[in-house]
Structure formats: C-alpha cells, structure tokens
C-alpha cells in the first residue's frame, strides 16, 4: 500500500466506515451496501477512478449472513491505479442499490449478476436477464445450483436418454 492508498483508506474510513485490506499488492475496500453509491461517487470524483473495470459477485453458500459479496474493480487512468470494493449482501431476498448513475457501463454487469446470482439492483433501468433465456428457473452461478451435464449417447441407450433429454419450453 503506497501513501496515496493509505490516504484514501484513511479518508474513506472516517466517512463511510470503510475497512481496507491488501492481498498480493492489491488494495481492497470493504463497505456496507447502503454506502456503495456514495463511495463510488467519492472515488470517481475526488480520487480519479474514472472507469469501472469489472463488477461481479461471489456466493458463500451455505453461509447465509452475508451470503454474497459483490466485487467492484475500479481503475484510474490519471494515477494508473486500481482498487477493488467488496460489499457483503445478505442471502434472503438479496438486493443492493445500483451504481448505474455513477458508472454507466455497470448496466450489463448488474444484469449479468441478477441473471447469474439473483441479486436485485434497486433503481436499475433495465433489470432483465442477459445471458440465460427469459423463462429460466434459478440462477446458475449460485453454489446451491447443480452443475448440469449432458449424458453420453450410445446406440444401446439412445432412446432411453432421448426421452428424458431436457428440451426448451414451448
């Protein structure tokens, strides 16, 4: 952690109660869900993190409180610097404020998180599934969602498998 990082962490700790940690030289800030929009706004406008590089989620099932972590990666062109933000989200009807008003490109990332993890983003302009079909049940990247596979067909079991093969809904 260099001087700039320490200064940022100190200021954010006072303002939003941000806890910072470092792993392999990468700084990670941990913040409560209600402060995420303000934190992003502060980092963008005061500390020059102009670009949201990535946004994703991690599921810690069977742990329920907090079950999910949202992970944001911010990047600054002018300081050539990166920082990540982790936000814990509880497992029961998970939802968090959207950061689309701060970083426009979060739109599709948040749609993907909704699609894959079932985390709702309050105030998101276009909360639809993005990768899976619209009528899909469940959220595939959750840890309690089983990993599917396709049975291998041979001549002797072709018909048997063909009967129970999953098909697209009408």
């Amino acid at each position, binding site marked *: 952690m260099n001087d700039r990082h320490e200064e940022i962490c100190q200021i954010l700790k006072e303002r939003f109660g941000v806890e910072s940690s470092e792993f392999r030289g990468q700084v990670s800030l941990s913040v409560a869900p209600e402060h995420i929009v303000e934190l992003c706004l502060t980092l963008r406008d005061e500390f020059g993190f*102009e670009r949201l590089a990535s946004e994703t989620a991690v599921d810690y099932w069977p742990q329920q409180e907090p079950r999910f972590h949202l992970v944001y990666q911010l990047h600054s*062109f002018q300081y050539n610097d990166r920082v*990540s933000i982790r936000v814990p989200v509880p497992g029961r009807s998970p939802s968090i404020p959207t950061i689309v008003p701060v970083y*426009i490109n979060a739109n*599709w990332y948040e749609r993907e998180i909704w699609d894959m993890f079932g985390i709702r983003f309050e105030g998101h302009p276009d909360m639809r599934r993005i*990768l899976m079909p619209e009528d899909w049940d469940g959220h595939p990247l959750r840890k309690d969602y089983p990993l599917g596979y396709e049975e291998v067909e041979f001549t002797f079991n072709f018909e048997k498998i063909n009967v129970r093969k999953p098909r697209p809904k009408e």
Partner: protein
Amino acid sequence: MTEQQILEVPLDNIRHLISERAIEGETVLLNMGPQHPSTHGVLRLLLELDGETVVNCIPDVGYLHTGIEKSVESKTFEKAEVMTDRIDYLNNTGNNLVYCMAIEKLVELDVPPRAQAIRVILAELERISSHLVWLGTHALDLAAMSVFLYCFREREIILDIKEMISGARLMTTYFRPGGLWRDVPVEFEAAVRDFLRVFPKRIDEYESLLTKNPLFLERTRKIGVLPADVAIQWGITGPMLRGSGVSYDIRKAEPYSGYEQYEFEVPTHPGGDTYARYLVRIEEMRQSVRIVQQALDKLPLGPVRSNNRKFVPPPRSELGTSMEAVIHHFKLWTEGFNAPQGAVYVAAESPRGELGVYLESDGGSKPYRCHFRTPSLTNLQALPLLAKGHFVADLVALIGTADIVLGDVDR
C-alpha cells in the same frame, strides 16, 4: 395481416427501451440476427427503424453462453485452463496468458525469462492473427471481398506456427501456470522470422486496398463517432478507446510478462470514428511485428517452466529415476495444488481491450470463483449509443469496428 395483429407482438419487457412511436406503429421493429452473417457470430439485435434510420438498437446476447465460469469451479486450477481457450476464440493464447498470470499471482509462482519471452511472441502473433480476422471480416462487411482472402492467407501462417509448437491450430493451451507446456521446437525461430520478413509488406498491401479507397472512406468516416470522455465513461478499452485519442494500453501502463523490455508505441488517433479505429488497428499490427522481432532477437536460453514442485508437475524424464518426482506427479495430476485463501484481479491487453480475470480461492485446489472481465461485452454495450441516427447499413460497419467475439461476450 391486419394492423391489430401487428400490435400484439409482446413488447412488455422491452417497452422501456423503445420509443412511443414504435407503440403507435409509426416506426418499425425489426429483428436482426442471431443468424446473420455480419453479426460475427450469434448476436441478435432488435432494431427500431424510422425508414432506414436506426432510432433504437437493443442488443440481445447469450446465444453462445456456455457456462464457463460455472464449469471452472468444478475443475482444478490447472485443468480449468483448457476452457479459457474457448472464451475468446480469436485470442486463445491471450486468454491462457491472463489466466496463468492470475494463478501465478495468487500462489506467487515465478516464470523463467525464456517462457516469458515466448509468451510475448505468441501473444503478439495472436494479436496479429485476431486483427487479421477483424480486418478481413470488417472489409467483407463493407463489400471489399478480396481483403478477406489476403488476410486469411497470412493468418494461416500464424495458425501453422501454433500447430508447430502445440499440435493444435486454435485451442493450444500452450501456456501453463509457471511457464509453458514444453519448449518450442527448433524450427520455430525460422518460421517466425519468415513470417516477420513477409508480413510488413503485406500490411502495406492491405492498406493499398483500403486506406485511400473512396468507397471504404465513405463507409467509415464520421460513422459511429465516439468522443474520448464518452468512451471512458462507458468503460471502453483497447483499440476502440485508442481510436478516440486516449493513449491507454495495459502493456505500457502495467507491464506484464516482460513487456517493459521491448520498445513499441501505442498508436492512437483523435478521430473517434470507424476509420480512426481502422487506422489504429493497422498500426497495432506493425507494432506487434516490432515486439516479436525484439523478443526473438534477445530470446534467452534456459528452462521454460518453473521448478517449484509444489505447483508445477515434474517433467516426464524425471519420473523414471526419482521417487519424489513420482509423488509430485501423482499429487499434482489428481488433487492439484492448494492455492492460499484470497482473491486477485489480473488484467492484460487482449486484441479487443482489457481482458481481466478475477480469481478467488478458498484455500482448496479448485477456483472458488473465476470471473472473466471480457472486453467484447463492455464494447458491445456501447453499440446502441453509436448506432443511433445511422443507417442500417452503417450498423454493419459499427458491429465490425467494435470487433466483438460472441464467445467473449457470453462466455
């Protein structure tokens, strides 16, 4: 069909994305794709058209979703690498590189200098090959047929080089955590030098076909203008950002795999239109040639894979003589290695922009979570912005200039 029936098309879930005029039937909703030759894969676009002009453009992705992020969680760190080839199928070695770098960062594994130099050579050849596919198909979309044939002629040489070193023409999985699968064969250097000798002249040939071609200029100039501040706001990276005049390249900004040793320039163009992005990518191919030349000239000798037996399986030759090697071999190919608990984010410059891997480990031998931040997804997101107000025919040019790979979008 009566007017009543046309209005019955279900619009409920996209009503907020189209204008009131579409509801009233003043503009036409047209489906483009997913089986459309100029969408470079399986991209579906829902277009709202006023005559020939695009009013709204709603991309619909996911037709190539293969669940790679889910599958990676069920495999050990090393075995999951095979799937990274398949994400962006025009940048196989680049995907391997960034995934290997993420593992190397997570477990603090060193890579020998020779392996790093060979990685750079292959990543740059891959960049050339990807840009050749882009150039060929982009020109083909704009009705310049012959460029496509010339581009694929040169790409064939690169695919042959990849086949020579790994046995596979596309999905090589040649980079491994801690180095390379094996050293390059003796013919490798001569083959790359042959390619470097002919290729700069070939770039001039493509340029003579396109750069001053009035038809090409007409189709690309002032089409899809993307100002620099908008590009940054939308998170766009790679040649699309540099085509808007922002000089940002991860190879320069955060050098990895020894890129700091090589001299090259980051081409930019202030135009921000389709033509500017064309010029940037052409110049990038020239710079890649420079990098490969330098890396080949000072290719160091030595091992190509780390000797850290906690993470890297021993070479086959040791198995006959060393009991310890047999134990390591057995352990690493069955259980794999345990990575320490923690998460890293590693980014590299792919031909399309920032390719990032977020890799999290819970202390076990499989990735707990592996997210690929792919440049195509982010760059495609800005397509509606670029397309508004242009003709449908220009939309084809805009899909081409974004250089999307649908495998990269959907993963």
